[in-house]
C-alpha cells in the first residue's frame, strides 16, 4: 500500500515537476528570445551607425560639404527606419553674400503636396527657433526628389522628428524624418539619428579646422615669402600670385592676369617660352639673372604635378639676388683695390731695385739715395695698408683689443694737432684745437687707439680741404640727455649740416674734427664706415689711401662703447666726431 501510494505519488509529483520545469523552461525561453531580439535590434542599429560612419569617412575624403554628408545619411536611412519623407534644411551664404536656406526633401513613399508643405512649414519654425532667426519661405531654395507626389494620399504629417545639424559648435541646419502614420517614432530612433548626426558634424568640424589651419598656413607662407611666387594652371591662367611677386614685377592693380606678368617681363625674358621649356623638359629651369626695376632677379620655373603625376600647372619663383650681386661687386672692387694699392708700390719697388743695380745709377750717388728713399717710402705705404687690413680682419673676427687706462684727452688732441701742423701748413691750411674747460682732466680710454682715430680724422680733413681752408679739432663734455647740436651751438662751434636729435643717456666726451672742405653728399654719409664701399671708392679716387681708416676708427670707438658719427653739408664742410662715455 505504501508502495502503491508511493508510486502514484511519485508519478504525480513527477508530473507536477515536469509541468513546472516545462513552464519554467518555456518562460525562460520566451525571455531569452526577447532579449535576443533586443540584442539583434541593437546590433542592427550599431551596424547601421558603423556603416554610415564608414561611408562618411570615405566620402569626407572627397568633400567637406555638409550637404553631401547629410545626403549620405539620408540615402541610407531606410535601413533603419520606416518613413515617408526625409528632408534637410541648411543655412548658407551664397556667392552674392545673401543668406539662403537649402531645403531638400526626398520622398520615400508617395505623399500629398500638402504633406511636403507641412514638413517645410514645421521645419522652418524649428529652424528659426534653433537659430533665433526670422527666415520666411521666400528665403528657401527647394529641391524635391524621390518618388512622385500622390494627390490621393494623406495630407497631414502623422509623426515626425527633427535632428539639428551642428558644425563647429554652431547649428547650421535641421534634419527631418516624417511619416503619414501616427506614433511611429520613439526615443530610440531619435537617439540614433542624433548620435549619427553628431558624429558626422563632429568629423566635419574637425576636418574643417584642420583644413582651415592648413590653408591658413599655406596662404600666410606664400604671402609672407621673401621670394615672389606665382602659379599658373594647365590653361596658362594665373591662379596665385603673392604680394612680393607683384611688387617685384611693378604690378600695382588688385587683379593681375598672366598677360600683365608677360608684359612686365617682356624686356627681360620671354616667360611664355620659358614656361613651355620647363614643361617640355619636365624639370626646374633657372633663368639667368636679370635686372628689373632696380632689383636683380633670378627666376625659377617648375612644373607642378599631383601624386598621380598629372600636371596641375607651373610655379614661377622670383628670387631677389640684389644683395648677392652687390656683394659680388664689392668683392671685385676689393680685388681691384688690392691690385691698385698693393701691386703698384710693389711694382715700383721692384723696378727701382732693378735700376739700383745698373752702372748709371750706381755711379750717381744722389740718384742712388733718391731711389733708396723711394723704396723705403713705398714699403712704408704698403706696410700701413697691410696693418689696416689686419686691423679690419681683427675687427671682423672680434679680436680687436683696446687697453683702457686713465688718460688725458687734452694732451692726446694737442699732440695730434702738433704732429699734423707741418703737413697742414704745406697745404696752406689752418689747423687748430679748441678744447673746452668742461672736458675732464682724465678718464679711461686707450690713448694710442684714440690717437689713431684722430690721425685718421685729421689726415682725411687735410686731404679733402682745399688751400686756404680751416681744420678745427674740438673737445667738450656733453651731459647726459643733452642735445649734441644744441651744445655745439652753445660753444660757438660750427658743424656744417649738423642735425638735432642726437643725445646719450650718459655723460660723453665729444672729440670732433671739422673742416671747411667740399662736404660729403647725404647719400654717401651712411656708407663711410662700410669696408667695401670705402675700398671701392678709394680705388677710383684721386686721393691715396684705402679709406679703411674710418672703418678701423669705428671699430676702435665701438670697442670703447662709444659712438662715431659724421655731419656734412656740401660746399660747407664736414665734421667727424666720436662720443666716448665717461662711465
Amino acid at each position, binding site marked *: 500500500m505504501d508502495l502503491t501510494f508511493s508510486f502514484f505519488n511519485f508519478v504525480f509529483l513527477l508530473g507536477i515537476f515536469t509541468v513546472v520545469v516545462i513552464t519554467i523552461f518555456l518562460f525562460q525561453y520566451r525571455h531569452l528570445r526577447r532579449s535576443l531580439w533586443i540584442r539583434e535590434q541593437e546590433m542592427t542599429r550599431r551596424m547601421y551607425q558603423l556603416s554610415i560612419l564608414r561611408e562618411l569617412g570615405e566620402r569626407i575624403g572627397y568633400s567637406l560639404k555638409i550637404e553631401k554628408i547629410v545626403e549620405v545619411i539620408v540615402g541610407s536611412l531606410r535601413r533603419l527606419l520606416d518613413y515617408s519623407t526625409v528632408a534637410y534644411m541648411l543655412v548658407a551664404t551664397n556667392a552674392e553674400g545673401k543668406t539662403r536656406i537649402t531645403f531638400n526633401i526626398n520622398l520615400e513613399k508617395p505623399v500629398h503636396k500638402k504633406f511636403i508643405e507641412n514638413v517645410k512649414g514645421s521645419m522652418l519654425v524649428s529652424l528659426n527657433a534653433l537659430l533665433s532667426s526670422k527666415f520666411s519661405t521666400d528665403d528657401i531654395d527647394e529641391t524635391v526628389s524621390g518618388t512622385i507626389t500622390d494627390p490621393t494620399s494623406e495630407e497631414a504629417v502623422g509623426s515626425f522628428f527633427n535632428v539639428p545639424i551642428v558644425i563647429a559648435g554652431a547649428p547650421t541646419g535641421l534634419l527631418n524624418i516624417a511619416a503619414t502614420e501616427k506614433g511611429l517614432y520613439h526615443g530610440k530612433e531619435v537617439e540614433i539619428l542624433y548620435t549619427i548626426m553628431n558624429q558626422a558634424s563632429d568629423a566635419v568640424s574637425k576636418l574643417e579646422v584642420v583644413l582651415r589651419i592648413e590653408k591658413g598656413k599655406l596662404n600666410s607662407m606664400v604671402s609672407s615669402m621673401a621670394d615672389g611666387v606665382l602659379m599658373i594652371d594647365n590653361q596658362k591662367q594665373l591662379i596665385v600670385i603673392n604680394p612680393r611677386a607683384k611688387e617685384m614685377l611693378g604690378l600695382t592693380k588688385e587683379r593681375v592676369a598672366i598677360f600683365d606678368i608677360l608684359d612686365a617681363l617682356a624686356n627681360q625674358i620671354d616667360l611664355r617660352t620659358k614656361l613651355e621649356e620647363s614643361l617640355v623638359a619636365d624639370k626646374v629651369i633657372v633663368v639667368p639673372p636679370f635686372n628689373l626695376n632696380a632689383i636683380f632677379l633670378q627666376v625659377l620655373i617648375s612644373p607642378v604635378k599631383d601624386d598621380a603625376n598629372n600636371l596641375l600647372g607651373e610655379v614661377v619663383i622670383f628670387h631677389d639676388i640684389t644683395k648677392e650681386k652687390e656683394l659680388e661687386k664689392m668683392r671685385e672692387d676689393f680685388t681691384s683695390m688690392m691690385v691698385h694699392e698693393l701691386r703698384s708700390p710693389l711694382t*715700383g719697388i721692384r723696378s727701382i731695385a*732693378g735700376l739700383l743695380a745698373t752702372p748709371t745709377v750706381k755711379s750717381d750717388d744722389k740718384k742712388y739715395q733718391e731711389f733708396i728713399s723711394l723704396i723705403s717710402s713705398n714699403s712704408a705705404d704698403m706696410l700701413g695698408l697691410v696693418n689696416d687690413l689686419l686691423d679690419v680682419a681683427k675687427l671682423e673676427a672680434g679680436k680687436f683689443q683696446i687697453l683702457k687706462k686713465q688718460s688725458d684727452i687734452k694732451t692726446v688732441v694737442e699732440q695730434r694737432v702738433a704732429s699734423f701742423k707741418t703737413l697742414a701748413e704745406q697745404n696752406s691750411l689752418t689747423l687748430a684745437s679748441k678744447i673746452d674747460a668742461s672736458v675732464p682732466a682724465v678718464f679711461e680710454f686707450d690713448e694710442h687707439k684714440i690717437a689713431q682715430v684722430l690721425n685718421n680724422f685729421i689726415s682725411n680733413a687735410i686731404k679733402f680741404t682745399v688751400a686756404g681752408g680751416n681744420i678745427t679739432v674740438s673737445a667738450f663734455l656733453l651731459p647726459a640727455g643733452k642735445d649734441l647740436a644744441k651744445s655745439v651751438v652753445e660753444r660757438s662751434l660750427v658743424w656744417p649740416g649738423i642735425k638735432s636729435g642726437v643725445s646719450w643717456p650718459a655723460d660723453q666726451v665729444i672729440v670732433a674734427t671739422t673742416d671747411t672742405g667740399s662736404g660729403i653728399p647725404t647719400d654717401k654719409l651712411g656708407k663711410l664706415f662700410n669696408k667695401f664701399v670705402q675700398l671701392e671708392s678709394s680705388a677710383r679716387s684721386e686721393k691715396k689711401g684705402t679709406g679703411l681708416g674710418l672703418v678701423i676708427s669705428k671699430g676702435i670707438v665701438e670697442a670703447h662703447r662709444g659712438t662715431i658719427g659724421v655731419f656734412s653739408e656740401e660746399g660747407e664742410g664736414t665734421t667727424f666726431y666720436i662720443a666716448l662715455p665717461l662711465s
Partner: protein
Amino acid sequence: MENLNPKKILVVEDEPSILKAVVEVLGMHGYQVFSATDGEHGLALASEVKPDLVLLDLILPGKNGFEVLKELKSTVGLSDIPVIISSNLGDEEEVQQGLKLGAADYLIKADYDLDEVVKIVAKNLKPA
C-alpha cells in the same frame, strides 16, 4: 753715343716709384722723357711737346686712362701718336677696350719688367 735728336716719350703714371723707374730707364736708353701723374696734365703735356709715343696708365686720378686715350685719338695732331696702355688690372676686357680705342700695344703691370718696357717702346716707335 749721345743722340742729337732724341725721340720724345710721354709717361702718364700715378705711382711715383714706377714713374721714376720708367723715366730713368727710358732716359738711360737715350729717350727724352716727359712725365705726368694724372690725365689732365698728361693731355696738356701731349699737346705741348707732341711726343713720339705715350705710355699710359689706365687707373689714374681724375680722368682715367681710357678718357685720356679717347681724347688723344680724337685730337688733330695727336691722333697718330702710338699709345701703349699699361694696366695693373691685368684684365683682358680692359686691354681689349684700350686696343679698340686705338692703343698700339699694352703692358700688364703684373709682369712689369723694365727691359720689357724698353723693348715695347722701341717696337712701337715709328721709324724716323
